[in-house]
């Protein structure tokens, strides 16, 4: 099996052999919602950070007891998975006010609606600022410290500055490697598809960082010798909120739209910015997580607009597709504004609404096909 094949497998299921091996060795796994959770802190505690998905969920019957019909389907499915015990491999869970859907779903965990493997279970909710300024960075440093202390206290662990600095280096290495992967996608004939890239990005959140980094280096070597994909109608930038299903991207690409870059939660927003390795680690993490490329939860939209514009230029995208989960207000308005801004810049842009589990595929195919026809080469 190639490294690329190995690294695209974890996305297909909630758990994977890396997590199984980790648990067999007595390791702890701490789940987290949202890319604003400083995973370096979990890693420095000797635990495996695991980004929450609802892969494999087929129903929201149980989740809907506490979610509502206007909650996004990612949260409804995730809550359903939780209530069915699918996250029993987790030793704790961390979240923040990413959006109204996440915070209310997390309340169901806090209110004891999930049957948990032990008690008291580790649940931590970070208070991450919405603004990007000096005061917010200072506040975030306090939050990182509080998070660190809560992990130490609950799990009887010790997170030293040295361990945290090392974790920063590990995750920076990961981010650099991912950026190298993205550099390859700037080519006229990129050697990797958007679907494969998303699968790799998901794997980075579901296995030990050191093992991921090693495999990704091998992937980069393999891609040097791989034929590029040139048979496409258009180069696309895929934007939007939570998307952890490579099949969604594959559908777009099967129609001729090669996804060469993204502005996604698992994508550029998650890894684009590094943490300073020479500063005091808590301060460095606070600065990195507040000043990174933001998501619409943050109130600094002009910088996001510029970032998207730069990505379109750098990756020579012919158009933008914004995908968003129904009921996602952040991406509802952000998607509209992205389209208005794209129109000003002369970049074709469409907004696609979706549910967490792929449905109405026919309608999506028709819309994407039509879009590609209008912008394609």
């Amino acid at each position, binding site marked *: 099996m190639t490294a690329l094949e190995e690294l695209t497998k974890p996305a297909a299921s909630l758990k994977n052999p890396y997590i199984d091996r980790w648990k067999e060795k007595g390791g702890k796994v701490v789940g987290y919602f949202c890319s604003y959770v400083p995973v370096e802190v979990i890693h420095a505690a000797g635990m495996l950070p695991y980004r929450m998905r609802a892969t494999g969920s087929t129903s929201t019957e149980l989740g809907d007891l506490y979610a*509502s019909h206007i909650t996004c389907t990612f949260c409804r499915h995730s809550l359903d998975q939780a209530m069915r015990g699918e996250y029993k491999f987790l030793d704790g869970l961390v979240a923040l006010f990413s959006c109204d859907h996440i*915070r209310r779903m997390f*309340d169901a965990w806090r209110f004891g609606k999930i049957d948990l493997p032990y008690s008291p279970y580790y649940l931590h909710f*970070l208070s991450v600022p919405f603004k990007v300024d000096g005061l917010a960075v200072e506040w975030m440093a306090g939050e990182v410290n509080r998070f660190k202390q809560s992990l130490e206290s609950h799990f009887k662990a010790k997170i030293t500055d040295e361990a945290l600095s090392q974790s920063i280096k590990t995750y920076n290495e990961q981010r650099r490697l991912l950026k190298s992967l993205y550099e390859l996608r700037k080519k006229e004939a990129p050697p990797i598809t958007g679907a494969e890239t998303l699968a790799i990005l998901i794997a980075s959140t579901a296995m030990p960082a050191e093992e991921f980094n090693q495999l990704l280096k091998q992937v980069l070597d393999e891609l040097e010798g791989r034929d590029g994909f040139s048979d496409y109608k258009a180069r696309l930038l895929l934007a939007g909120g939570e998307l952890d299903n490579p099949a969604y991207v594959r559908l777009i690409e099967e129609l001729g739209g090669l996804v060469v870059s993204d502005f996604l939660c698992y994508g550029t927003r998650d890894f684009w910015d590094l943490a300073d390795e020479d500063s005091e680690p808590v301060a460095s993490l606070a600065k990195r997580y507040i000043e990174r490329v933001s998501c619409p939860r943050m109130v600094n939209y002009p910088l996001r607009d510029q970032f998207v514009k730069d990505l379109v230029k750098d990756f020579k995208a012919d158009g933008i597709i914004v995908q968003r989960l129904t009921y996602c207000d952040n991406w509802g308005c952000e998607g509209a504004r992205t389209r208005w801004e794209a129109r000003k810049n002369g970049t074709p842009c469409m907004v696609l609404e979706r549910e967490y589990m792929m449905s109405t595929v026919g309608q999506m195919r028709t819309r994407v096909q039509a879009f590609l026809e209008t912008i394609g080469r």
Partner: protein
Amino acid sequence: MTQKYQLHRGLYDVVKTLPEPFMKMMADWLGGIFTAVDEGKPILHNQFTIFSELMVALDIQLLSPELWQVVSLQLDPNACCESIDAAQDAGIHPELCSANKAIIGDTMLDKIPPPSMVVLPTFPCDNSKISYQTVAYLTGAPTYFLDCPYWMDEKEAMDYWVNQFRGLISFLEEHSGKKMDYDRLREVVEESNRCIDYWLEGVELLKLQPLPLNGPFVSGYMAGLTSLGLPAATAAVKASRDDLIARLDKQETAVAEEKARVIWFYYPVFWDGGLTPWMAEMGAVIPVGLVGYYNAEPIDNTSPETIIRGLAQRGLQSPMGRQGRGASELWIDDCLNAVEQWKGDCVILAGHPGCKWLRGCYGLFRDIARERGIPVMVYDVDLFDPRLTSAEESRARIEQFLTTVVFK
């Protein structure tokens, strides 16, 4: 040339002739807006949880966009529909809260005086934060966000929040060209303390059984959004309080026979002003709702520092802001307290389709209400758009609930 904002100007023309102190307060607010429009003076848009004290001290004209919608709905239940549709036609998703769609649409259609500056907190919800960013994009208006920590238990959290208010003062000074006069601010805050005392008394009087007047007590909240800190606002709220006392003295009650006290722990259905009188005809009264549920300490006027800290603390208490800024228990505990303190027989919750943060509390609340034997009804109705659930349908559902579950 036809003047803009005809609906609101027409309302102003009526309201300014009315003698009641509450009407005078609203007339002053609307009149101030139109004077600012006609004379090209700055207008600050304050989101519906931002009270007026700092802006009053700087003599900056306020316009709460949500209140702008609400007053238009008193004249025409469909007043927001054109703007809602315009926002959707432009690409705003239909599941956004209709209040926010209406604000965005009003901005696009020039149905609201544009802001020179905008102030809002990062609560209560995504709808508000992202919509106001959209309005900032459309208008280019400088926008100040008061960033609120999720948990307020730690001293550092309050310090961070207080610093937001310091930043707000700098923002207001920069964009109004005026300097804060702390003696003036002291006067404004003293006046606001008096006003809030009347608000709290009014809310307290509605705990009485039988209810002297159908609630909820709204004048305090209207004062907060328009002119808290001005004598007209204090007079308006005092008059509402005095009205209650007068009714108590005469032993007048809201209804002849009080059959149920309904805790409507959300905002009213703004386009259906006849709903609560209709409920009252059945003997169902509303002693308290989210609008009237308020508690705040008087602000210590000793120094600018104590004033700013006091304003920040008060800023956490505004209706819906208080309940929406954090975890579910903030709303749940307040609702349960409302049931207990105002002797509620049941809870009716309007399921506003855009309100994800609150709808997400309902499942947890349902379990607790069931344990405590509190009848609860949730029904889908859009507070700003009558096209989802008609007035007739609302009444049919409420009547069924009250007659089969609540009335003894």
